[in-house]
């Protein structure tokens, strides 16, 4: 994800240029889909919600000014749409015949996404800090993180590809998350940090 969009692009988004929307979509859509899919567990629905979020940006283009953070706006919109979707799922669930376990997981995801920490993490300053933190990750750590996310590889497959043990893969992913936590410690609620400080 590119973090800083130049004034020119913002201006073009403000004016509604197709090319600007295309460029933005091309660069940000994969990350936003990965974010939504973490909660919705359905890539098609996640993609749909991300499309709706970009269309909403277009509808609100009049609000795009020089200090507008497009990335944070899109993340927040995707979060809101995902929450709506999960909220309505309870009604639809009877028809679709979800498995009990899957439903439980979606319910848990709904509560996680409703939690104040989900909102907090999408504040502009925190988003940028997080990106910086991820940039600082050791290359191996980052690579493993990417493989698990983008190529949807299991830990076992990643371990085979990189000729390392499954345990190392797990450790690296946990390490990535811990680095992000430490980087964000001043932003997250104090009570939540107690354990991480002693990790």
């Amino acid at each position, binding site marked *: 994800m590119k973090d800083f969009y130049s004034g020119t692009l913002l201006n073009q988004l403000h004016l509604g240029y197709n090319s600007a929307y295309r460029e933005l979509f091309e660069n940000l859509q994969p990350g936003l889909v990965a974010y939504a899919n973490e909660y919705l567990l359905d890539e098609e629905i996640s*993609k749909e919600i991300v499309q709706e979020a970009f269309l909403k940006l277009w509808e609100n283009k009049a609000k795009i000014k020089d200090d507008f953070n497009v990335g944070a706006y899109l993340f927040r919109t995707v979060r809101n749409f995902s929450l709506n979707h999960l909220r309505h799922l309870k009604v639809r669930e009877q028809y679709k015949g979800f498995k009990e376990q899957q439903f439980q997981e979606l319910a848990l995801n709904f509560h996680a996404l409703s939690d104040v920490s989900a909102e907090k993490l999408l504040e502009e300053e925190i988003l940028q800090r997080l990106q910086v933190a991820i940039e600082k990750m050791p290359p191996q750590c980052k690579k493993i993180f990417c493989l698990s996310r983008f190529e949807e590889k299991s830990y076992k497959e990643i371990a085979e590809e990189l000729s390392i043990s499954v345990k190392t893969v797990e450790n690296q992913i946990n390490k990535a998350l811990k680095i992000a936590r430490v980087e964000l410690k001043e932003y997250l609620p104090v009570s939540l940090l107690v354990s991480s400080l002693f990790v």
Partner: protein
Amino acid sequence: MDYLNDILSYLNKELSPDAEREFLNRLETDEQLRKEFYCQKNLLAVSNGVIDFEQTASRSDISRFMFRLNALRSQEKGMTKRNRWFNFYRAAVIIALPIIVLAGLKLYRDASHTSAIESTVFYTETYVPKGERTKLLLPDGTEVFVNADTRVRIPSNFSPTHRMLWIEGEAHFDVMKDPEHVFLVETPSIDLEILGTSFNLNCYPEKETVETTLESGIVRFAGTERVTIDGRILKPGHTAVYNKDSKTLEVDEIRDNELATGWTDGVLKFRDVTLGELVKKLERRYDVTIVVKDQALLLEKYTGKIRNETIQEVMNNFALATPFNVQYRRDEIIVSK
């Protein structure tokens, strides 16, 4: 108590079914664990969202988004539903006239679950057979002159504000100028975005390259999955050559435009072209099958211009330049040494 490792183990899906059940039970009762879990889950999701991995959206996702954007744009302009239907019928009538073969009506089921804008989109496929050419007039005023052995698919929701088509083969485009509504041309390998332009596009499936020759206006290359040629702009008089294997785009500034566009005037012009390539062109132009028995002959190169000659005259001329025998059978032409 170290909650974090339990949480990460759960998120990593490395707990046994029993341990997972136990973890979920603990989540129900232990509020601090629950808070911590939400935080960790959200952190994982946002990290997944912002990590910079050079991945861009897929071509089909981008196209879909651009269509929906255009649809939204026309709604905003107060275009009524009736108007859009009118456009649809006009499109249907105008497209139907020159259609030679209605090869397939592909039902495209929209994968959308929440979309209110798009419902079902049909594609009308036009196939222009070998030995023929045809002109399509689209509802936005765009003219497409389609060469032999070419497929064109036009979506049912094509309108002056939602302009796109898919093509495999060769065509000459005169796209109606409208800077606000991009005209998308999809090929099996690359996409083009056009604002108001006349150009020739050659994307026959057996060719290693996709060639775009621009006469006027602007063509922007839209790239594909994992191909970063996006934003390249072609100038009039130049030919862009996209190599399907190496996925690279090169611009040829000195090529003779008539080589590319001559066919629209019934002229087949070629320079230093191998017999192998010419055979394909001749088969399409004359609707014949040409069998070259000697592989070495396929590499012979020819330069010339064909206008009204019959296929026999053309083959005889080649035979004069490089001595070879031509036999005319009922359904094929045999070339041998």
